[in-house]
C-alpha cells in the first residue's frame, strides 16, 4: 500500500493547458463576476447600488451557465487529474448555477424590504456557487475539501445577514461552529483514506481498493467522510442544527442553503459511494435514510413556524434522497440526481413565496400569518400550493416523479423495507404540507397581514420554479436521459 504513494509523481507536472482552464470556466466566470461585485460595491451610492449589484450578479450567473455550456463541449480531466468534466459534473453545474440565479432574483425584493445594504451578499452567493460547482467536478479528495470549505464559508456568512436579528447571528454562529466540526470529520476521513490507499484521487483509490482486500482504515475513512457530508445535507443523525439555522437565516438564503450545497454534497457523496464503492457504507446509509425520513417528518408535524417546518421537511427529503444511495449504482445515481433537481425547483419556489410573504424583519412566518392567504392573494397562494403539492409528492409535479423514481430504484435493488418506510413517511409527511394549504384556504384571516404586490423579479423567480416543477413532473424524459447517461459514465 505504501508503494502506491510512489505512483503520485507519475503525473506530468506540465503547466496547465488551455483545455484545463476551459474545464473550470464556470468557476472562473463566477469568481470574476463575484469580484466585480465586490469592487463595485464601495464605488457606488449606497442607496442605489443594490439593484445594480444584483443585476451584475445575475448576469454573472447567466454567464456562468453559458460557460458551463462551453465546458460541456470539452469533457475530460484537468489540472493534473483533479477536476473531471463529464455529464455528471455538467448536470450539477447547471443545477447549482440556476439555483444561484433564482436566489439572486428572489433576493432583490427581500434585500430592499429588509433594508439590508451590502453588495457582498450577491458576491457571496456567486462564490458559494464556485465552491459547489467545484465540489461536483472535483475527483481529488483534497480539492473536494477545499471546494466544500469555499461553499461552506459563504453559507456561514450568508446565514448571518439579518444583522439586526439575534436569531440570525445565532443561526450563523451555530452553522459555523457545527459546520467546521463536520468538515473536520471529512478531512479526517480524507487523511485516513490517504493512509489506507496512499492516494487522494478518487479514481486511483477505487482502482487500489478493487485490487486487494479492503483495509479496515478505508472503512473508517468513508464513514468519517459520510459524517461530514451527512452534516451538509442535513441527514439524521447530523441534522440537529437545521431548524435553528433555517429559522434565523434570511429566507432566500434558506432556499439557497437547502438546495444548492445539498446538491453539491450529494454529488460528492455519489462519487464516494458509487465510485470508491466500499460496501461498508450501505447500512450506514440505510439507517441514516430511515432516520432522516422519520425524524424529519415527525419533527415537522408539530411546527408552527413555516421556516422551521420547511427545515424539518428538508431533513425528510434528504432522507428520501439517501434511499437512492442504498440502491444500485446505475439507477441510484440517476434517481439521486433527478431528485436533487426536482427538490431544488419546488423548495426554491416555496422559499421564494415565504421570503416575499415574510415582509420586513421577517414578521410573518408563522402558520397563523398564512391564514386567509388564499383570499387575500389568490395567485401567490395558488403557486405556494403547487410547490407544497410537489413536496407532498402528488402527480403532475416534479416531486411526485422524483419520489416515484427513487422508490422505484430502491425496489429494483430489493430494498423493500426501506421502501415501505419511505412510502409510509411520504404519507405522514403529507399532513404538515396540507396544514399550510388548509390555513391558506380554509381559515379566515385573524390577523392583519399586509398584502404587498409581487415585484417582477420575484414573479420571474417563482415562474421559473413553477415551470421547472411542472416540466419535471410531466415531461421528465429528457432530464432522465441526461441523468442516466451521467450515471453510466460515473459508474462504469
Amino acid at each position: 500500500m505504501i508503494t502506491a504513494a510512489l505512483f503520485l509523481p507519475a503525473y506530468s507536472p506540465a503547466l496547465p493547458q488551455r483545455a484545463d482552464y476551459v474545464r473550470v470556466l464556470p468557476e472562473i466566470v463566477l469568481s470574476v463576476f463575484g469580484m466585480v461585485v465586490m469592487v463595485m460595491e464601495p464605488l457606488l451610492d449606497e442607496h442605489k447600488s443594490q439593484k445594480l449589484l444584483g443585476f451584475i450578479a445575475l448576469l454573472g450567473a447567466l454567464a456562468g451557465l453559458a460557460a458551463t455550456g462551453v465546458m460541456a463541449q470539452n469533457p475530460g480531466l484537468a489540472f493534473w487529474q483533479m477536476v473531471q468534466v463529464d455529464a455528471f459534473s455538467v448536470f450539477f453545474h447547471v443545477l447549482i448555477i440556476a439555483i444561484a440565479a433564482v436566489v439572486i432574483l428572489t433576493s432583490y425584493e427581500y434585500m430592499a424590504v429588509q433594508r439590508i445594504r451590502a453588495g457582498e451578499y450577491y458576491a457571496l452567493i456567486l462564490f458559494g456557487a464556485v465552491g459547489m460547482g467545484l465540489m461536483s467536478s472535483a475527483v481529488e479528495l483534497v480539492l473536494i475539501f477545499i471546494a466544500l470549505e469555499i461553499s461552506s464559508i459563504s453559507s456561514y456568512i450568508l446565514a448571518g445577514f439579518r444583522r439586526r436579528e439575534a436569531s440570525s447571528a445565532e443561526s450563523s454562529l451555530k452553522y459555523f461552529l457545527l459546520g467546521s466540526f463536520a468538515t473536520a470529520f471529512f478531512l479526517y476521513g480524507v487523511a485516513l483514506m490517504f493512509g489506507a490507499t496512499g492516494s487522494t484521487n478518487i479514481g486511483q483509490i477505487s482502482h487500489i481498493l478493487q485490487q486487494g482486500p479492503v483495509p479496515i482504515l478505508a472503512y473508517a475513512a468513508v464513514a468519517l467522510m459520510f459524517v461530514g457530508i451527512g452534516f451538509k445535507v442535513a441527514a439524521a443523525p447530523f441534522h440537529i442544527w437545521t431548524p435553528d439555522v433555517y429559522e434565523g437565516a434570511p429566507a432566500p438564503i434558506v432556499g439557497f442553503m437547502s438546495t444548492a450545497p445539498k446538491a453539491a454534497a450529494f454529488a460528492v457523496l455519489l462519487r464516494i459511494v458509487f465510485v470508491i464503492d466500499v460496501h461498508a457504507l450501505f447500512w450506514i446509509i440505510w439507517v441514516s435514510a430511515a432516520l432522516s425520513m422519520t425524524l424529519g417528518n415527525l419533527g415537522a408535524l408539530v411546527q408552527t413556524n413555516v421556516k422551521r417546518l420547511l427545515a424539518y421537511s428538508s431533513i425528510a427529503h434528504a432522507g428520501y434522497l439517501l434511499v437512492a444511495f442504498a440502491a444500485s449504482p446505475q439507477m441510484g445515481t440517476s434517481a439521486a440526481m433527478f431528485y436533487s433537481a426536482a427538490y431544488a425547483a419546488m423548495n426554491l419556489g416555496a422559499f421564494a413565496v415565504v421570503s416575499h410573504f415574510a415582509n420586513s424583519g421577517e414578521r410573518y412566518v408563522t402558520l397563523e400569518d398564512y391564514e386567509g392567504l388564499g383570499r387575500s392573494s389568490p395567485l401567490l397562494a395558488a403557486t405556494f400550493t403547487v410547490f407544497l403539492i410537489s413536496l407532498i409528492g402528488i402527480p403532475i409535479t416534479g416531486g411526485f416523479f422524483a419520489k416515484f423514481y427513487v422508490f422505484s430504484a430502491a425496489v429494483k435493488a430489493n430494498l423493500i423495507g426501506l421502501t415501505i418506510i419511505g412510502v409510509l413517511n411520504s404519507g405522514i409527511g403529507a399532513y404538515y404540507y396540507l396544514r399550510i394549504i388548509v390555513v391558506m384556504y380554509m381559515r379566515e384571516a385573524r390577523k392583519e397581514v399586509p398584502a404587498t404586490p409581487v415585484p417582477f423579479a420575484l414573479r420571474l423567480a417563482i415562474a421559473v420554479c413553477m415551470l421547472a416543477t411542472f416540466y419535471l413532473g410531466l415531461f421528465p424524459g429528457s432530464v432522465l436521459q441526461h441523468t442516466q447517461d451521467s450515471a453510466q459514465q460515473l459508474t462504469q
Partner: protein
Amino acid sequence: MNNDALSPVILSLVTFAPMAGALLLMLLPRRDRDIRIFALVISLLTFVLSLHLPVYFRRGREGFQFLIDKPWIAAPNIHYHMGVDGISLWLVVLTTFLTPLCVLISWRSVHERVKEFFILLLLLETALIGVFTSLDLFLFYFFWEATLIPMALLIGIFGHERKVYAAVKFFMYTMIASVFMLAAILWLYAHTGTFDFVYLRDHLASIPHFGAAAQWLFLGFFLAFAVKVPLFPFHTWLPDAHVEAPTAGSVLLAGVLLKMGTYGMLRFNLGLFPDQSRHNAWWIAILALIGIIYGALVAMVQPNMKKLIAYSSVSHLGFVVLGIFSFTQAGLNGAMFVMLAHGISTGALFMLAGVLHERRHTYEISEFGGLAEPMPAYAVLFLVIALASAGLPLLNGFVGEFLVLSGAFQAKPILGILGATGVIWSAVYLLWMYQRVFYGKVTHAVNNSLRDLSGLEKTAVWPCAVVALLMGVAPILWLSAIDPAVRAALTPFVNVASRMVGQ
C-alpha cells in the same frame, strides 16, 4: 377496431377536455355568471364527447377499445396507454354525466370563490376519467393520486362547519392507503420492466419470485382500494367527508370516487392476482357483508339526512364488493350495475339533500316534516330516487342488487341469504326517512314557506330520475357492453374451477 375518425383520439379528448376547460377558466375574469356558464358548457361538451364511447363501442367483444399507446418516458418504461372495455366504459360516462349536473346544482349554492370551485371541479373530472381509462399502472397511479387534492380542497374550502377536519381526514386516509399500492406497483415494475396492465395480466404468473410476493402485492392494491370503497372497517372517513362536503363534492364523491375503489378491485386485484383473490375472498366477502348490514343499520338511526345517505353508500358498496368476490358472471355483472345505479341514485339523493340544505341550512331530519305539502315536485322526485336507491323493481337499484345476490348465492348460499337482508334494511331506512321528512303535518312553521324546486334544480335532478328508470326497464343496454368484459375478467377463475372439476 373502431374505424371512425374520432376513435383513435377520443379517450384523450374526453380525459383532458375538462382540464383544458379548467386552464381556460383560470384566464377568465372573475365574473361569476360567465364562469358558471363556461363550466357548464365545458362539462356538457365533455359529456357529448364521451357519448361517442358507448355509441361506437363494439359490444359483444371483450378486450380494450379506443386504444392509445404512446411511449411517454423511455426509462422507466412508462406509456401513455389508454383504453376502455365494458367495465370502464360506463364509469367514464357516469363521470361525464354527473359533472354537468354538479355544475347545475352548484349554480346558486356556491357563491364565493366561484372560479376556484369550478376549476377544481373540472380538474377533478379529468383525474377521475383518467383513473378509468388508464391501462398503464404508472398512469393509473398518477390519476389516482391526482384526484386527492381537488377533492380535498372542494371539501375543505366549500364545505360546512367541520370541513377542515373532514378534508384532512379524507386526504390522509386515502393517501396513506395508496402508498402501499405504489410500493406494489414498483415491485411489479422492478421484476417485469413494464407498467403495462395488459402485459402484466397475461404474463405475471410466469415471473420469478412472483409466488412469494403475490399475497403482499394483492394486499397492497387491496388496501388502497378498500379504503376508497370504503369497505368496513375502513369507512370512518366517509360520513365525515360526505356531511361536510358541498353538494357537488358529495355527488362526485359518492357517485364516482368510491367507484375508483371497486373498479380497482375488479380490474387490478382480480385481473393481476386471480389466485390471491380466490384465497382471500372469504374474509373480504365477510367484510362486505358486515358493510352491507352494518352500514344499513347505522344509516337507519342517523338523525342527519346526509349522514344517512353516506352510510347507505357503505351498504351499497358492500354489495359491489360482495358481487366482485363471488367470481360469478351474475355477481360481477351485478357489481358493475350497482356501481352505476348507485352513482345515479345516490348522486341524485345528495343533490336533493343539498336542495334542502340550501333552504334551511341543516340536514337534520327532525327539522323537517310534512314537506310534501309545500314542495310537491320535490317530494315526487325524492320518492322516485329513494325507491330507485331502495331497489324497487323497474328502477335501477333492483337489477344490480338482484344480480349480485344471485351471484353470491351461486358462490355460497349463506352469502346470498345474509346479503338479501340488506335489501330490506335499505327499504326501511329510506322509506322511514321519507316518511319523517315528507308526510304528516308541517312540524316547523318555517317549512311552510319553503320554495319548491327551481327550474335549475329540476334540470339537475330529472336526468338522474330518467336514467334510473331507463336502467331499470332496459338494463340490457348497459349489460350488453358489460357482460363480455366481465366474462373475460372471469376467465382465470373459470379455468381454475373447471380444472378442479376435472380432477
